[in-house]
């Protein structure tokens, strides 16, 4: 029978347990195949996307090993092209995006707003299957005769046409992205509908946790950006196989149109990747500083500002094509620094005079701030056309966006350490977590900073060989060392999961956290809540657990010195 769910009633302990007994039936592979529970689907997304992170990371290690000597012979030039293409594709399409909006958002957003499930559970399951099948399609390119796609993760025309990149690897790349693209669109629809329609009573829009807000804005961006990519991919396929000339000069087409379409998706995609992690970091910093989020509404409007501006900056990837409106894109790109700066200010303001607890999640969040700042500031350089003409397609760009994405990886691991106990019911080992953090943080800086210097020296990106220059070789070797440290940190995470598997039960609220998801059990029952607290601020669980230090309605604080409250 279909579940027609009554609302959970306040203060009724174990009200509907008898309803939920029957859900314990299916386990194992049958549960994985048929479940429409957002937590099971989210867990499938988490495991799949972390496996993709490890696969993409392995490609990165091979690339860095190849570059540790000027004329490395670990892989052939053709294999190198496949590797950097698939490294970028796996990391962007199959790890960062799905991990953000498929894995953690899927599990946490319904919990944070007091919903029993996502709005469309079967669509949610379909999203996962499209993502998994899309990933398999993309990766199966390696098993074809011609090898995987080798035109870079951006697939610029005319390099991506059927003359320059023949073979089925490229077609599998297009097909895989079609599937994962639809998966993302469906998830976007689901998140919007869930947040608009399934909030608990009293959970007004301006009481939603920042993570949920960021996921809403991310979902809107997905709906704006992903259809453009899907349309572009279909055009590319038609050019390759059906004889159309949309992107080829020969038939009167415009190659640069592909770049417009790709980056009109691609730049919002950068924020689709980043905003969820901004949200995670905001939650983590507030909880482990024992303070409410500083500038709650400022955070929300900054997020909306970033999203609004992100649609008008795509051609800053195309300055050197010479056919874009430079002043417009430079101004828009530089303006993004303003809302991002507001966010940085608010994160520091949240920590300011807080009672900071340096757990692994908090360390990851602070590491995120530092690394993201390095990547963000170099991004401001690149937004300026004269500087971009100088550094375009050099290692400076590579180092810039690797600072950004490695910051996101730190945010991702912070999210896993913070919400892992809620999702699985068991704590992760903090000591191994801290070892992982230091390897990851130091490794990231050792890996990226030589790249900035190499880029300013003029080393181009996407090359397997480079001139014999002692300085270039040394810098590349330092960078490779950083990549090895990052690899060790990932191994530490796998070891941590193995060592702390079902060892230390977490309890409902191990961090004394603020938001609604910590009110239910760990792991939450089927349909999430047996009872709900009264929601009078953006910190309902905190208000319930600390009635003497409530956050007043509308987020104004009755207690002016909330941060000085001793924590029991």
């Amino acid at each position, binding site marked *: 029978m279909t579940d027609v769910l009554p609302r959970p009633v306040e203060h009724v302990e174990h009200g509907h347990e008898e309803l939920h007994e029957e859900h314990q039936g299916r386990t194992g592979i049958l549960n994985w195949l048929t479940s429409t529970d957002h937590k099971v689907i989210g867990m499938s997304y988490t495991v799949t996307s972390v496996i993709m992170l490890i696969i993409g990371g392995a490609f990165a290690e091979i690339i860095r090993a190849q570059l540790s000597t000027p004329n490395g012979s670990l892989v052939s030039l053709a294999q190198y092209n496949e590797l950097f293409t698939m490294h970028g594709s796996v990391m962007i399409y199959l790890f960062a995006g799905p991990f953000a909006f498929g894995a953690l958002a899927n599990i946490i957003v319904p919990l944070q707003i007091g919903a029993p499930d996502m709005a469309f559970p079967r669509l949610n399951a379909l999203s996962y299957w499209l993502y998994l099948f899309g990933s398999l399609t993309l990766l199966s390119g390696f098993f074809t005769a011609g090898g995987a796609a080798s035109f870079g993760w951006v697939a610029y025309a005319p390099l991506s046409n059927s003359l320059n990149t023949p073979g089925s690897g490229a077609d599998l790349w297009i*097909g895989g992205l079609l599937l994962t693209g639809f998966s993302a669109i469906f998830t976007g629809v689901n998140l919007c509908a869930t947040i608009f329609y399934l909030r608990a009573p009293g959970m007004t829009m301006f009481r939603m946790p920042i993570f949920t807000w960021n996921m809403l804005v991310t979902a809107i961006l997905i709906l704006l950006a992903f259809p453009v990519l899907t349309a572009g991919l279909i055009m590319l396929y038609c050019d390759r196989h059906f004889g159309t000339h949309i992107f080829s000069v020969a038939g009167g087409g415009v190659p640069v149109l592909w770049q417009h379409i790709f980056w009109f998706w691609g730049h919002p995609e950068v924020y689709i990747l980043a905003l969820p992690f901004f949200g995670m970091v905001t939650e983590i910093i507030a909880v482990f500083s024992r303070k409410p989020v500083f500038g709650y509404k400022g955070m929300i409007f900054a997020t909306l500002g970033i999203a609004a501006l992100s649609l008008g900056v795509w051609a800053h990837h195309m300055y050197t094509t010479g056919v874009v409106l430079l002043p417009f894109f430079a101004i828009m790109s530089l303006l993004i620094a303003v809302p991002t700066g507001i966010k940085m200010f608010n994160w520091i303001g949240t920590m300011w005079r807080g009672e900071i607890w340096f757990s692994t999640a908090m360390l990851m969040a602070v590491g995120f701030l530092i690394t993201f700042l390095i990547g963000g500031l170099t991004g401001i350089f690149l937004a300026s056309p004269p500087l971009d003409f100088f550094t375009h397609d050099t290692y400076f760009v590579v180092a810039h966006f690797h600072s950004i994405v490695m910051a996101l990886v730190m945010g991702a691991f912070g999210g896993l350490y913070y919400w892992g106990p809620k999702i699985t019911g068991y704590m992760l080992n903090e000591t191994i977590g801290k070892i992982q953090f230091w390897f990851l943080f130091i490794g990231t800086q050792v890996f990226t900073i030589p790249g900035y210097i190499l880029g300013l020296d003029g080393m181009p990106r996407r090359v397997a060989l480079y001139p014999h220059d002692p300085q270039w070789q040394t810098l590349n070797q330092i960078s490779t060392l950083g990549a090895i440290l990052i690899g060790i940190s990932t191994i530490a995470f796998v070891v941590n999961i193995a060592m702390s598997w079902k060892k230390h039960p977490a309890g409902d609220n191990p961090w004394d956290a603020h938001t609604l998801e910590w009110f239910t059990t760990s792991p939450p029952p089927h349909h999430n809540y047996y009872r709900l607290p009264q929601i009078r601020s953006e910190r309902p669980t905190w208000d319930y657990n600390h009635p003497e230090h409530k956050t007043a309605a509308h987020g104004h604080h009755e207690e002016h010195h909330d941060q000085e409250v001793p924590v029991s």
Partner: protein
Amino acid sequence: MKVEAKILIGLGAFFGSMFAVYWYFSNEDAGGVMMFGGMLLGFLPGGYYYWWSRRMKPRPEDNPYATQAQGAGVVGSFPGTSIWPFTLGAGCFFMVLALVFGIWLVIPAIALVFWALVGGTAEGRRGGKV
């Protein structure tokens, strides 16, 4: 519902103004068209939400002083376990493989998709297994 509507309309208005500036100063069509589309994606659902928000009573989740009891009643109907999303996904998978490995793969693809559509619809009508 008003806040939701205002967010979407606000984004649509911003995309609209950006479109106007870009359209006027650039000689490029693709970006202008896409920004115009972005504007519509803000205005259409935003306008619809706004239209509704003026015609409905505020929901408990829009009321800052709502108690949990005010939200008592049915939240909605949620499906139980279902195999059909997997079947539909597998059908789409074969459809994409048909683009690469040969048109004959369309046969299992359409079979799976059709089977999933029929099965999913029937399950939705009678209520799936929980």
